[in-house]
């Protein structure tokens, strides 16, 4: 990539964020219904925050083109959740000044937790389409819903993948494998790791090491040494980008070659990570994350159409699976709202609780059925593998485009 391209690519989100947030704000008239769209559109999470917002935008355009919701056109009022404080401020503004019927968001778990406290107090429904922290839907809120899989689902996929795909690929009994869990020690990594331990122990896996580290670590050689000393066969790392790169590089340079490395979202899903560590080093590394684009189209029905719509609107390929998951989640919600009359919290709850969409019929593959706490219990994460510099879906078999190979 040339410098110019890189610079243009870097500047584009900022320009677009300004353009879109200015463009979508308008007042709802009689034949319109207004929803809030709360994402980090500036600051350090802007890239994927905006990517998430694009998914929602495409879903809204599609719904509007097909007659809208309850015969009304959907209008989005944008909010920029640059940090927790601003997320709270923007949620207040959307509710009191923009008078939105509900809020969609948020990508970032911490912003989602902060902003949804405001909406819950005001009795306004909040639809989370992308944040993964477990507690978002476990705070006893009445008007909180989440369409996407969570930290718990990520750990579930990790463990299931070891049991059903990794161990068979290695020709070994899963319970003979020595498992090591390493994770960045904020809420995200710690909560995934605790579910990995829980599900791993339930399945009788031999977990020999669980270790957290600060994500700002500049050296992971002692962790690599510890894993090697404990003869860990399978490493599960839940991490951000810098620490994913650091671990993969240092493990490789120190000649530590476990039978499998399984990453959790974050850095493991991103092409710049593969470029930074080298395509040959990341070859074969596994990952669990939201549905991405290299997925069986017979299972993720409509993923191709989504990519086409995205290209037509934004002139580039999607930059991550966040847009796809926000798109699919928003469609589930908006289509459900079309089945009832009115937008009171009660009718919205009624609409969501009636949803029952089987897996293999949506653009993300996973289905939708909401539990009492508002969490979509039919959601799950996909297992993926790096092959020749590409991240392809290998688990579950229905969604896979290739078999998991080690």
């Amino acid at each position: 990539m040339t410098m110019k391209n890189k610079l243009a690519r870097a500047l584009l989100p900022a320009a677009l964020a300004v353009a879109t947030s200015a463009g979508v704000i308008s007042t709802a008239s009689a034949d319109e219904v207004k929803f809030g769209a709360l994402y980090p559109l500036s600051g350090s999470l802007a890239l994927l925050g905006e990517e998430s917002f694009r998914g929602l935008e495409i879903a809204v355009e599609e719904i509007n083109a097909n007659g809208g919701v309850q015969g009304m056109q959907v209008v989005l009022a944008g909010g920029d959740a640059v940090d927790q404080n601003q997320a709270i401020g923007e949620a207040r503004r959307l509710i009191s000044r923009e008078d939105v019927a509900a809020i969609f968001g948020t990508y970032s778990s911490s912003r989602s937790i902060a902003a949804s406290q405001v909406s819950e107090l005001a009795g306004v429904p909040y639809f989370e389409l992308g944040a993964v922290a477990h507690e978002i839907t476990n705070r006893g809120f009445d008007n909180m819903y989440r369409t996407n899989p969570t930290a718990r689902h990520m750990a579930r996929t990790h463990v299931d993948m070891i049991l059903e795909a990794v161990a068979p690929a290695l020709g070994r009994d899963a319970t003979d494998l020595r498992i090591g869990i390493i994770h960045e020690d904020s809420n995200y990594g710690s909560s995934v790791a605790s579910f990995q331990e829980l599900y791993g122990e339930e399945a009788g896996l031999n977990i020999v090491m669980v270790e957290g580290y600060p994500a700002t670590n500049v050296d992971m050689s002692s962790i690599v040494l510890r894993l090697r000393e404990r003869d860990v066969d399978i490493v599960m790392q839940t991490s951000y980008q810098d620490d994913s790169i650091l671990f993969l590089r240092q493990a490789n340079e120190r000649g530590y070659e476990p039978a499998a490395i399984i990453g959790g979202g974050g850095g493991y899903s991103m092409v710049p990570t593969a470029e930074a560590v080298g395509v040959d080093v990341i070859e074969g590394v596994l990952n669990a994350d939201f549905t991405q684009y290299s997925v069986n189209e017979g299972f993720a029905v409509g993923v191709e159409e989504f990519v086409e719509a995205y290209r037509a609107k934004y002139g580039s390929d999607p930059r991550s699976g966040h847009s796809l998951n926000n798109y699919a989640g928003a469609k589930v919600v908006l289509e459900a709202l079309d089945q009832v009359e009115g937008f009171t919290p009660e009718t919205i709850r009624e609409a969501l609780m009636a949803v029952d969409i089987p897996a293999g019929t949506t653009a993300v593959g996973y289905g939708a059925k909401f539990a009492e706490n508002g969490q979509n219990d039919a959601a799950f994460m996909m297992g993926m593998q790096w092959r020749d510099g590409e991240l392809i879906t290998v688990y579950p078999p229905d969604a896979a485009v290739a078999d998991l190979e080690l």
Partner: protein
Amino acid sequence: MAGGSKPPPLNQRSNWHGVLLAMDLIFTNLVNGLMLGALYAIVSVGLTLVFGIIKVINFAHGEFLMVAMFLVFFATAYFGVHPYVTLVVVLPLIFGLGMLVQRVLIEPLQDSDEHIMIFATVGLSIAMINLMLMLFGPDIYSTPSSGLRTVVDMGPAMFLTGQLNILIAAIALVGGIHLFLTRTQLGRAIRATGQNRAAAQLMGINVSWVYMVTFGIGVSCVGLAAVLIAPLYPTSPEVGQYFVLLSFVVVVMGGLGSISGALLAAMIIGIVDAFAGFYLGANVKDLVVFGIFLLVLIFRPQGLFGGARNMSHVS
């Protein structure tokens, strides 16, 4: 590992085997610690220099590292040269930036309350991070490693050629700055200004100029660090934050303003970090590092190598 054979699990090893392995591990951790210490040292030297002379705690120190790493990335990409060659571009630019910051931000506040200067550098840090976020987004930028990630295999211990270069450069930098401060006219003027600004001014030293040069040299040290670090660590607007907290610990532990103290403190922290990380775990190593730091503060508040110094910035 020699022969590619895996060591047996800990509980199946004989005592003798265990002793040999334990010694291997001690050696490995020692080497890891030295390499890590060198990294902290090369980032800390400029910080302690600026503090010792100008009496400014530069909270934007890490951000100068970050900006310099971006310069290395773009110079490498643009000219297609080895990252080390970019030093000729990066050093003058970052030196100039340092002089500019001293002239327009620090100097006008020189005689005001110390807290004001802290706020000024914290503000500068936030502004620099957000400026880079605006320009380049939160993505990472990987400078090509250009062979600097080649592994040097010393029996059980391994390190990268790039890490060894950092160690050599850190020692050379400390020696070089020491010589510069003691053997050159400008160096003596800098020290005189650091010892007593008013007296230095009376002796005909242009204090304002000396401060600008000192700040420039201080951030040039991170310019050098950036050239050495960029091929090993990905660059992002937040990268300065990763290094800066420990470099403050290093500077205070070594004795504020003591350059050789910073080198030694960095090595101590690097080695403690490596051993605690291996024997106790990554989640408790900061507990050990900061525990030792607290003990030093309690029993030797002037730092391990700090003597009685004039720390007033208005003297």
